[in-house]
């Protein structure tokens, strides 16, 4: 049976068909839907981990124990998981182990554009690059074969256009779910330096065997056509090549670490002009150049952003397409905090108090945009708290003008260690945990503080108050983020305190609660526009009547705007006019 699937759905299907027993991940666009879809197969144990390093280690443990395991993450997650990854590359596995890294060329929803193919070369592990959903599924099977035959973790690298594009997939019946017996093997799995040195040699020997294997593996193949143009490519770029220059001869690479050097030489000798088409870094190109082969790649294509069929056609054939100017100027439509979002009022207060805000990764990063413009830094998951400590150590007087903001899921991910550092090293940092009881930005996944697992089982909730106190924070305050006066008072007090403090703002994400409030009402608006500084999509200004309008189809009746209105013109529904 053939059906349309995204790359992520197809990878999940591959996990089902090719015997994966354990799957772990931390959500991150564009990888999230892999685990969400694996969770639909009850045959596979699947879980959200607090972060990517933990997920990787769960996968490693399962593989060492003898099961086939899959770990998935977005590309920056591999930075977090790199520590275990580089060493499991030495130990090898018992059951097959595959890491899926979903890269994001064009930075549709990421803070950088790193090309994770280098991780595979760096860690000396095999790398697979699918070019459509069918290959996504099949490469899970190939990853298992390679992993178990060569005793190595395997990386599958997708990109946004693979992960989130649908194409046809032929479904098959699942194979067995083999779980090998566990046996202690300390020389192999205890990476003491002496053991590690022996495994280091094993890695080199494995790399040699893989270098032979990659020459003849089916996913590396030549499609001979017009010998005037030869193109070496991989992943989504293959699709752009086939469409952009259909007459070209193509060397399509599916296993891109190690690269098939003989096959590349062979192909290069058969074509007149050789090109490499790859998104982001010159990963394949540099390797070809190192072989002394003349090839054109990044001279034509940028090492940033996405490519397209048109790019490939124009650059390879040298014939420019029609000049397409953008005819109209359109105002931007950036993503915004939703109506009723519990974060909005908090950022309004931070903006009002003119505080320096050390930010983090989540929906609340949207607090950086106009009109709130209340975030000073955003680097990576967890950096808000540790970054604030560093700022304070550089400028001690900033401690009284600064807060760190972090969501519940991100705090669990890597905020806890930062807070421990604040306490340990005598910081005065004020941390606001924006607890909306969900991992919201990636589409509402559970986490250790929500009370539910990926497979739908009830779970204990992390008690943030007890956790912060156990870390040594004496000042922990909980506050309702809709109560702006109280939020303001608490923030002022805690920022002034000469010791670490944590403020927990608690309200569930507006998208996960069943709202029963009626829309806010407007009476006798003076047109002062203060409420517009909240940046609520439900509020607009009517130039004719010079009053604020409430879009009742959007307003959730959260009432935050009624708290900022100085003239009592905005009111919760039903509140009297007295």
């Amino acid at each position: 049976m053939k059906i349309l699937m995204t790359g992520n759905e197809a990878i999940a299907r591959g996990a089902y068909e090719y015997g994966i027993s354990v799957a772990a991940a931390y959500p991150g666009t564009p990888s999230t839907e892999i685990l969400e879809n694996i969770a639909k197969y009850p045959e596979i144990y699947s879980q959200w981990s607090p972060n990517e390093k933990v997920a990787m280690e769960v996968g490693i443990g399962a593989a060492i124990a003898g099961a086939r395991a899959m770990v998935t993450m977005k590309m920056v997650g591999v930075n977090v998981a790199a520590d275990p990854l580089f060493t499991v590359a030495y130990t090898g596995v018992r059951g097959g182990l595959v890491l899926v890294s979903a890269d994001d060329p064009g930075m549709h929803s990421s803070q950088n554009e790193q090309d994770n193919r280098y991780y595979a070369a760096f860690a000396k592990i095999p790398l697979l690059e699918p070019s459509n959903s069918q290959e996504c599924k099949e490469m899970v099977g190939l990853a298992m074969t390679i992993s178990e035959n060569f005793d190595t973790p395997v990386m599958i690298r997708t990109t946004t256009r693979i992960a989130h594009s649908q194409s046809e997939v032929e479904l098959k019946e699942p194979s067995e779910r083999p779980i090998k017996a566990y046996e202690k093997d300390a020389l192999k799995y205890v990476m003491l330096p002496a053991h590690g040195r022996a495994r280091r040699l094993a890695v080199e020997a494995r790399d040699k065997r893989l270098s032979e294997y990659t020459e003849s593996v089916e996913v590396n193949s030549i499609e001979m056509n017009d010998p005037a143009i030869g193109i070496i490519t991989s992943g989504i770029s293959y699709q752009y090549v086939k469409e952009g220059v259909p007459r070209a001869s193509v060397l399509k690479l599916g296993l891109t670490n190690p690269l098939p050097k003989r096959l590349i030489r062979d192909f290069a000798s058969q074509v007149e002009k050789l090109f490499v088409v790859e998104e982001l870094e010159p990963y394949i190109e540099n390797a070809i150049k190192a072989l002394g082969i003349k090839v054109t790649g990044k001279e034509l294509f940028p090492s940033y952003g996405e490519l397209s069929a048109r790019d490939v056609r124009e650059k390879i054939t040298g014939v420019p397409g029609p000049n397409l100017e953008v005819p109209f100027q359109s105002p931007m439509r950036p993503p915004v905090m939703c109506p009723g979002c519990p974060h909005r009022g908090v950022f309004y207060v931070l903006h009002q108090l003119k505080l320096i805000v050390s930010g983090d990764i989540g929906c609340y990063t949207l607090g950086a945009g106009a009109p709130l413009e209340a975030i000073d830094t955003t680097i990576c998951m967890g950096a808000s708290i540790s970054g604030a400590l560093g700022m304070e150590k550089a400028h001690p007087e900033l401690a009284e003008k600064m807060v760190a903001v972090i969501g519940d899921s991100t705090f669990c991910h890597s905020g806890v260690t930062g807070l421990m550092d604040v306490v340990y090293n005598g910081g005065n940092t004020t941390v606001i945990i924006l607890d909306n009881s969900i991992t919201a930005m990636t589409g509402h996944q559970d986490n250790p503080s929500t009370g539910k697992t990926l497979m739908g089982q009830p779970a204990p909730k992390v008690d943030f108050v007890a956790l912060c106190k156990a870390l040594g924070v004496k000042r922990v305050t909980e506050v309702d983020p809709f109560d702006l006066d109280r939020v303001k008072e608490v923030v002022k007090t805690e920022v002034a305190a000469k010791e670490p403090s944590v403020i927990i703002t608690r309200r569930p994400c507006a998208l996960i609660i069943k709202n029963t409030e009626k829309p806010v009402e407007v009476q006798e608006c003076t047109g002062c526009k203060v409420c517009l500084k909240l940046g609520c999509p439900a509020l607009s200004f009517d130039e004719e009547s010079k009053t604020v309008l409430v879009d009742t189809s959007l307003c959730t009746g959260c009432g935050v705007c009624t708290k900022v209105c100085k003239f009592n013109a905005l009111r919760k529904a039903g509140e009297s006019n007295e």
Partner: protein
Amino acid sequence: MSKITNVLLVGVGGQGTILASKILTHAALAQGYQVKMSEIHGMSQRGGSVVTQVRMGEEVYSPVIDPGEADFIVAFELLEAYRWAHFLRRDGVLIVNNQKIVPLPVLIGKAQYPATIINDLKEKFSKFVEIPAYQLASEAGTSKSTNVVLMGTLSRYMDFPEEVWQAAMEARVPAKFLEVNQRAFVLGKQFDI
């Protein structure tokens, strides 16, 4: 259809472009075409500009439509039609829901919502089709079926038999909303352009 047909669905996060594209791809697949679809979500879930690309034909490689190559743009909102118009071929069909959803920069007074969108688009594209899809959806029973009204309008230009569309809706629309969406589809299809 020996060549590839490119359909770009553009709108605002929450308008249901994804469900619309699922109905369209289901129908195209049933019609025997190779189909690819690409969507960008993530940040765009939060009321941002969203775009879904559908390509169908005998052999389709890239899942992405280049500027100037869309045969159809189905715009769920006026400003989004304006923003993405350069993706349309000169002789392409531009189907526009004449609904306005004002973006935040305009709400807070930092930008103007262009006043001449419909006239500008009419002038530039001969096959401009304006549909009051939001109103038609409300007539059908719920404004949430705006997306399916627009699929009804698009269906006039596709060579899929009626039963293929019906089967696609049955497969893709949750059962309890099927009837209202079937009404919405008919209203979009029969609207006097």
